[in-house]
Each structure stands twice: as C-alpha cells, then as structure tokens.
C-alpha cells in the first residue's frame, strides 16, 4: 500500500506539472513567436531599405544614361540659351525620349521630365500632363541639385501619390557645361506594394499625409494605422523606424514596423509600413481552436511515446496494486478458507504487511476470543445419554465438540466484516439473519421477541427431526417440549456468556448424523 500511495502521489504530481506546463508554456512560446515575427519584420525593413537604395541607384544610372543623349543635350542647350521655339524643343525632346524609352511602363517609369538650365520644363513624357511645359520647377531640391551637377534621388508626395525620383544633369555636347537636367519618376503605389509583398513576404502599406495610399491588405481595415505611426514619431525621428507594434484589425492582430521614406516626402508623413501576423492568443481555447488535423498526425504528434508513457504508468500502478493489495488479499482469503476447513488454528499474520497484517492479527484475536468464549459455554452436546430428547444422537452425543468447532467459522463473519464469510457447510449455511419465522399471532402473556424465539426453536426442532429421519436416526422421545427446553437453557447460557442479543440454531449433517450449531447474535 505504501508504494501504491507513493505512486499515486507521483502520478498526481506528474499530472499537475504537465498541466501547469501545458497552461503556461504557450505564453512564453507566443511571446517568443512574437519576438521572432518582430525580428522578421526588422529584417524585412532592412531589406526594404536596401531595395529602395538599390532602386534609387538604378534610376540614377538610367537617367544619367539618358542625359548623355546628344539630341536631348542639343535641344536642352538651345532651350537654355533661349534660341528657337520652346514648342519645337518640347516636341523634339518628347519624341526623342519616347524613342529612347518606348515602353515606359515596362521599364517601371511613371514619368520623365526634361528641364533646361533655368529650371524650366521643356518636355514631359508619361503622366497625365505630358502636354504641359514651360513652368519653372527649379525650386525643387532634386532639380536644383541636378542643375548644379549632382546626380541624386528623392521621394515626392504630391497629388496624393508617392513618386520616387532620380535626377541627373544633362551636359552639353562638348561636355563642359550643364545645359539642363532630366528626372525620372517611378510611382510608388499599389503595384509597388504588391512587389514588396512578393519580395519580402510581408504585407505592406504606404502612408502619405496621414492616409493609406496603397496596401496589400484592405486599406479600410488599416484606418488606425496612420495615427498609430504618428504616435511613434519620436521613435521614427530617432531610430528611423518603429519597433514592432501590435495593431488590432477586426478580430485579427498584426505586428507592424513603420519607417519613413527619405527625401522631402519625409516631411509629408510618408511612411512604408511592413505588416506581419501576430501569433494567436495563448489561452487554451485559442490553442485548441488553432489545432488542425495535421498537428495530430503520427509524424507531428508523439503518439507512441505518449502511449508508452500512459501504459507504463498504468502497468506500474497495476503491478503495485497486485503486489501490495490483490496478492496479499488472495493469500489471506486462501488462509481463511483453510481455517474454515479446519486446516489451521489461526492466520500466519507475519506474512502480511500493512493493513492486511492488521486484518490478519485482528482475525487471529477474534478467533482466539471466540475460542475462549466457546470453551466456557454450555454446548448442546452436554446432554447426557439419558437426557431427552435425543440420547445418543448427534444432537446429544459429541455435541460439544461439534458445537465448539462449528461455532468458530460461524462466528467469523460477524466479527470480521468485509472479509467475506467462509464457505458454509453443505446443509446449513451460517447466517446472521434469523430464519424467517412463520407468521403467527403472539400469545397472551408473551412478548413478540419471545414468540419469535419459540417459533425459531419450533422450526429448528422440525428441521432437526426431519434431518434425523433423513439420516436414518431414531427420533423416538424427541419431543418439542424437551427440545425447546434444552435449547432455551443453552441459549440463556450462551447469551450470558457472550453478552449477545440472542442465539440462533441451525441444523446440519455431520458424519451422517444430524447436528445443531449455535450462533450468537450480537
């Protein structure tokens, strides 16, 4: 029992620890997943920055190559000098650019603008306003830089659109002076966002002046994004990006990293926001809800170790149960049966440990007690041969030993409840319950209890008489009065001796003769 208890406690502790781990482990796991997602967004942001930088260099190279064209240089030179018609120069430059770059959209270009050395627009290609020319855009920093001799890039936000631009000077044919400048613009809108999503494997949103101008997820659900980014303006100013921020979008939670676009668009609240999915909630219901059939497949779930562990726990428990409970119990029952068969006088209580040892000792003590009690009682067998009702019969002859021996097993069951009664004799099974009395009205001057007793004795008499006849014994002289008187006397003696409520008699056959067994009833 001791080891079983220890095992039970160990299993309970193990189950408690396992349950605690099951409840708490998802939380740090989710935090870790969130960190990893944040790191993934960090890397994506770095990659995005590098991509923008490479793109900017690519556009600068492209516009610089374009600026080396002799036709463009000549047209811009004459426009800068004010010679010739601007309209003619406009047409010349436009046609030339279209000839050099016939497929603007295929090249990813939204617009190309040529300006003369004074910053005046000579021609535009692409965009909605490619027929307009003549206005001065020399105040733009990128144009000023190009007219000074710099190749540079910028990001502009105008008309609700973002435009990544690159500008370069156009040198004269003799390459000794700047005669104008060119800039190309690449629209940074939905197509750009989709390209970013494809390359970076994160969702992307582009913000300008507090509005989402393009995103790879529905912009309606990102209405709170500009405010959230604006709240972290300090981080953006200091670190050029935000940490991974959680955004609740409907029932979904996302993580977002925002960074500003460079150039003058940075003054127009122009940001790109990289958005990743936040891991699911860590509570048990959410975890179970997110469990799929794939998670429970043989390759995904450790079914075999789990089954082996469960079977091992059950096997150890059963073994300990067998070792400590069932084994001793079977041995005890076998020994008790031996006692019933009168193969021994008492149980060998040293063989049993724990509770069973205590039971065995209690049984031994009870047997000893009953034995002592029986040895001091007046057994039925004390009838003398001449005494009525059955001189020389089993009822009289040898009755003492029969009564004393029969009383032991009969006394067992009431003294040791729960251990089960020993197998009863074939003819008269021992029972604590009094035999059913015949329903007869109580006589005047007697109590109901006395009437029961008389009825019981009458029944026993009839059974005894019948048994004797069956055994071929003589019944001459065996009258009810004598029989009853004898049993009353013995009953009184036994009740006084055992301090019991009453005594019940049963008839049984021993060695071919009818005998009586007395059972004290507490």
């Amino acid at each position: 029992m001791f080891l079983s208890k220890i095992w039970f406690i160990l299993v309970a502790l193990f189950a408690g620890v396992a349950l605690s781990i099951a409840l708490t482990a998802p939380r740090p796991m989710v935090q870790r997943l969130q960190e990893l997602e944040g790191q993934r967004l960090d890397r994506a942001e770095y990659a995005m920055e590098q991509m923008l930088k490479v793109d900017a260099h690519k556009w600068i190279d492209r516009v610089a190559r374009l600026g080396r064209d002799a036709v463009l240089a000549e047209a811009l030179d004459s426009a800068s000098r004010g010679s010739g018609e601007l309209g003619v120069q406009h047409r010349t430059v436009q046609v030339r650019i279209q000839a050099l770059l016939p497929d603007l959209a295929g090249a990813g270009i939204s617009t190309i603008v040529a300006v003369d050395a004074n910053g005046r627009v000579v021609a535009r290609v692409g965009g909605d306003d490619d027929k307009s020319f003549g206005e001065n855009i020399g105040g733009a920093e990128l144009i000023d830089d190009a007219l000074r001799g710099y190749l540079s890039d910028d990001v502009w936000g105008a008309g609700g659109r973002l435009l990544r631009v690159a500008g370069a000077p156009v040198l004269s044919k003799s390459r000794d002076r700047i005669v104008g400048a060119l800039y190309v613009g690449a629209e940074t809108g939905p197509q750009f966002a989709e390209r970013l999503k494809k390359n970076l494997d994160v969702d992307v949103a582009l913000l300008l002046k507090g509005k989402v101008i393009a995103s790879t997820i529905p912009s309606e659900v990102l209405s709170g994004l500009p405010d959230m980014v604006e709240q972290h303006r300090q981080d953006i100013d200091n670190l050029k990006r935000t940490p991974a921020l959680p955004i609740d979008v409907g029932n979904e939670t996302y993580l977002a990293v925002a960074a500003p676009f460079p150039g003058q668009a940075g003054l127009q609240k122009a940001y790109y926001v990289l958005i990743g999915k936040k891991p699911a909630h860590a509570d048990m219901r959410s975890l179970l809800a997110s469990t799929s059939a794939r998670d429970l497949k043989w390759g995904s779930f450790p079914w075999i170790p789990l089954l082996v562990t469960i079977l091992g726990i059950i096997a150890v428990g059963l073994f300990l149960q067998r070792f400590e409970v069932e084994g001793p119990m079977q041995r005890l029952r076998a020994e008790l049966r031996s006692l019933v068969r009168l193969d021994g006088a008492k149980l060998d209580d040293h063989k049993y440990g724990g509770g069973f040892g205590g039971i065995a000792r209690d049984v031994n003590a009870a047997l000893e007690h009953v034995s002592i009690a029986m040895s001091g009682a007046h057994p039925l067998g004390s009838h003398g041969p001449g005494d009525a009702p059955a001189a020389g019969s089993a009822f009289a002859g040898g009755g003492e030993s029969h009564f004393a021996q029969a009383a032991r097993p009969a006394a067992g069951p009431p003294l040791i409840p729960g251990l089960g009664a020993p197998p009863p004799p074939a003819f008269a099974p021992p029972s604590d319950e009094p035999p059913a009395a015949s329903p007869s009205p109580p006589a005047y001057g007697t109590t109901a209890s006395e009437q029961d007793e008389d009825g019981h004795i009458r029944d026993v008499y009839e059974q005894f008489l019948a048994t004797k006849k069956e055994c071929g014994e003589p019944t001459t002289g065996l009258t009810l009065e004598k029989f009853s008187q004898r049993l009353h006397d013995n009953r009184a003696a036994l009740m006084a001796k055992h301090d019991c409520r009453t005594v019940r008699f049963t008839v049984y056959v021993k060695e071919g003769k009818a005998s009586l067994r007395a059972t004290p009833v507490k």
Partner: protein
Amino acid sequence: MTSLRTLVPLLLLALPLPAVAGTVKGTVRVPDNVRSGRMNQGYWRLENGNVPVRPSTRKPGTIVVLDGISGTHAPPPKTVTVEIAGLGATPRFVVIGPGSVVEFKNTGKITHELSVPADETLMPIERLNPGTFRHQKFGVPGGYLVRCSEYPSLAISVIVVDSPYYAVVDDKGAFSIPGVPDGKANLKVWAGGHWAHEESIETNGKDLSIRIESAKNQPEAKDAEGQGKEGDSEGKEPDSKGSAE
C-alpha cells in the same frame, strides 16, 4: 499750452534711452544640410564627374537675432510680399515686426497649399492657385516656417522680431549687428527653418565677436553618412559626396 509745449520735451528727455555701445559680430557655422543647399536628401547624391559642381544659389536663410534687450522697440509692422514662382519663393525668408502682414503671391503655374505646419491654427492649409495671393498676419514674435504641403521644398522663413537688432548671415557665415546697446541680450540663430542656437550674451560697450560652432541640424534632415565617397570639388559642402562617371 505753453506749459504743455515745454513739458513734452522734458518728458522725452526723462525717458531711459538705451546706451548705444558697439557691434556684435561673429560667424555662424550653419548646419551642414543648410550649407549644402539640400535640406532633404534621398539615398544618393553623386557628382557628375565631368563638370565641377556649382555652388548652391540658395541663400542659407540664416538669421541672428538679439532680443530681450531692455528699452528697445520692435520694428514697425509692414506688409511684405513673397512671390512664389514654380517651386521657388522670393525672398525665402523675411524678418518683420509684430503685426506685419506677409503677402504670398503665386505667380507661377503650380498650385500650392501653404501653412505653418508647426502652428496650423495660426496659418492653416489653404490652396493658393496660380495668379492668386494670400495675406497672413504675424502678431507674435517668433520664427515661423511657412511650407507648401504638396511641395515641401518650398519653404519660407518668417522671423517676427521685437527688437531691431538682427542680421542675415552671409554666404561665409559672418554676421554683424551694429549699434547694440549695453546690457544683457538673448542671441538666437535661425537656420534651416528652426531656431538652431540660443544663448545669453552681455554687451559691454565694445565690439563683441561670437563664433557659433555647433548649430544643430534640422530634425527632419536626413543623415547621409556612409553614402557615396567624399566629394572633391566642393569641400565646403560636407555632404557633397561621391562622383559619377
């Protein structure tokens, strides 16, 4: 009437007049991005490699103001016109007294949306179509950067001073404010669209020479560190970097 005629000059004589002392002059090392002529940079800025890069034609717009001088009077209010043509404004900075009005006149073909982003209650965003103008009164001394929200490179500095002692820093960073009276004064430097430097000085009747080395960069200015190579044709512009063939 006679007594009144004699009393007024006497009262004027009794008023404490600031003692005219000397000249406050010095040099200001303007922020790098202001000197380079490019306030908002992208990722790259490379020289063309064939012809030398020309210096910026933009005035840095750096102004040194002395205020907090007791007994001085603010410049009288006036109306100043700023002409916007294309993406440029002329002048790009104005220094005016409290109560002055600035007229922003769009003579170009591009529509602008002007405002003071730092104080949109003073001057909210308003469309300025070509050929139209907008009047804006500035009553409180301070520095205001008027910017176009569509083309942020178009920025006009409006400095409202309550003292007549101010000077515009020249291309070399030098400034000179003559006739500054004795006493304590607060010297402020407006550069790159914001107050870049501020310190208390004491004028003692002699010429004062000040060298302001560490004017802060504008917060939104981009850090171009690590991009391109060191420039070789315009060393005075620290962010003139790299060269292209």
